[in-house]
């Protein structure tokens, strides 16, 4: 059984359709992310699950039962808000006890429960602290504790890391994943940051313009994107536009707009003569001479050092190509001639996106 299922959920505001025929099933205890650019409808979808919006059509089921007729305060899904929405006039302990008191639990039960959940999020004994005494990461953990103390069927997280600085965000990614393991609760996480989604999730749904483009494990999305949007949105890619000239089995030939013929693999229904885009991951490109696949010649434009994810920028005609160069191990210098190579099956070809 699934903790949360959406069946053909659609939400329209007047003429605008924010969410279009979205279906998903989230197995118990998994970490599921919805990844999409801002304005793609992911927040609307989450608000429908929490009960703040009513779907125009479709059904939402929690633990198998439809919740469409339940008001937000009767649904056993709890939400961590984008800016956390901790109650500033209450202490940490009161914030966590709020939900328990709403449920009418006795005072003698509430105290130990609050203490236990604070212990689990690693902030034991902070019941009497004021909210504004906490750091960003601590607030995050209190917001999660406030929900988890109610033992929800599903925890919804609405880009909760957005307000944190980079270092803390990296740290909280790992911490969130660990908390999810610890509580063994289903997490539904929405974000526009692909690295958050990839690092934490068991499954990711990529959303664009109100629809799901693809649902799969992070690795599947990265290695085997099903559309140009997913290929461009998940992970880094060099995108070259051109026209498909010939398809021969797995391999295809593309005439680039800037001139030059390259080889790749058609991943959708594009036929010869279609306008296409070729997606090349920086790490599937090699520099220098060699036998494999297809190649382009250019000049080194600049060297970008960033430890293990260092890059070399190669200018080919009027296009800049990013090539992975871990720890700057290649001995290239700026302005030198360089050749970029890849095997044809690593270059994915999709129909050109309209935008």
């Amino acid at each position, binding site marked *: 059984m699934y903790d949360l299922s959406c069946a053909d959920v659609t939400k329209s505001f007047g003429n605008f359709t924010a969410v279009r025929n979205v279906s998903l099933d989230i197995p118990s205890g998994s970490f599921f992310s919805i990844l999409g650019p801002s304005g793609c409808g992911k927040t609307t979808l989450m608000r429908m699950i929490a009960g*703040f919006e009513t779907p125009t059509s479709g059904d939402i089921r929690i633990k198998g039962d439809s919740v469409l007729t339940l008001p*937000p*305060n009767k649904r056993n899904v709890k*939400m961590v*808000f984008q800016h956390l*929405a901790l109650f500033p006039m209450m202490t940490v302990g009161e914030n966590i006890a709020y939900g328990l008191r709403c449920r009418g639990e006795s005072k003698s039960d509430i105290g130990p429960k609050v203490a236990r959940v604070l212990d689990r999020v690693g902030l034991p004994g902070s019941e009497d602290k004021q909210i504004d005494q906490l750091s960003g990461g601590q607030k995050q953990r209190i917001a999660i504790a406030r*929900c988890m103390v*109610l033992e929800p069927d599903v925890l919804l997280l609405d880009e909760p890391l957005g307000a944190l600085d980079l270092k803390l965000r990296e740290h909280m990614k790992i911490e969130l994943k660990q908390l999810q393991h610890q509580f063994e609760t289903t997490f539904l996480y929405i974000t526009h940051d692909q690295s958050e989604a990839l690092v934490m999730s068991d499954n990711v749904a990529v959303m664009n313009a109100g629809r799901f483009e693809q649902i799969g494990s992070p690795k599947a999305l990265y290695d085997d994107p099903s559309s140009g949007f997913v290929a461009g949105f998940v992970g880094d890619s060099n995108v070259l536009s051109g026209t498909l000239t010939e398809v021969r089995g797995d391999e295809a030939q593309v005439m680039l707009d800037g001139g030059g013929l390259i080889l790749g693999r058609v991943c959708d229904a594009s036929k010869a003569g279609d306008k296409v885009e070729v997606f090349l991951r920086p790490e599937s490109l090699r520099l220098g001479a060699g036998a494999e696949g297809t190649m382009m010649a250019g000049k080194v434009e600049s060297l970008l050092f960033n430890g293990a994810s260092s890059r070399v920028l190669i200018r080919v005609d009027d296009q800049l190509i990013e090539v992975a160069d871990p720890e700057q191990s290649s001995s290239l210098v700026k302005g030198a001639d360089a050749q970029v190579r890849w095997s044809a099956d690593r270059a994915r070809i999709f129909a050109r996106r309209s935008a």
Partner: protein
Amino acid sequence: MSRDASRLSLILLFAPFVLWIGLLIILPQVGIGYTSLREKISWNEYSFGLKNYVDFLGEPVYRNTLLRTAWMSILVTALALVMGFPIAYYIAKIARERSRAALFLMCLIPLWVSDLVRAYGWIVLLRETGVISTALVKWGIINQPIEMLYNDMTVIIGLVYTVILFMIVPLVSTLQGMDDALLEAGYNLGGSRLTVLRRIIIPYAMPGIVSGCIITFMLTAGSYLTPILLGGKNSSWFTEQIYNQFITRYNWESGSAFGVALLVFTSFVVWAGLRLTGQSLATTVAKD
């Protein structure tokens, strides 16, 4: 040089404030306090003592008028809060951005007309030959004209109407600062509408509630025109007693003592109100 300049600008900035506080608030109060302690022995002969206060406390009419004024002011404050809160909440949270300014302006419009004219407006409506009475007779709802002026109810209605804006403004500004996500979090964690109102909205709005209540209470207790015009001779408003002492009886000493008594007593009521509701000025009005 620049230090002198900044010092000078500081002095210039503060000068109007200091002059205003000093000349118009502190000095007259000191004068009133001083006068209230003078006892008239004979023509142009005074001694100092508490006789004026003893007289005030010894006369039940004066004491009761003060208590009555305080009670009715508390009632007016409570009514203004109960009626003003939903209006403020609507303006701050429910109304759309564009209609918000218009609604706020509609609250402000009555202030463009003087107190006096507004009170006469009520008189035109409520007197025996007034609009409401005549209309009711015409429609056959009542048999003969009724006098709706000169009773406590009318005074309270008139006062609530006069002061409610001073309740709405601070409430709107506090409620506007409240993130809607707090309300949604309140519902999401299982709270009913009542719980969210009681445990989230009201505590959040507390600074606005406290400052609104203090302003309306002080304005009401110190008001003169509305209770006199709508309540008539037997409105028994304490400011009327002060007026009588100063103007009718030309007893400035006693009038000053009454003035001090009103200030002290209303301040006490505010203090007691804060204590009873567990609030303090530091955590509400002075909160940033």
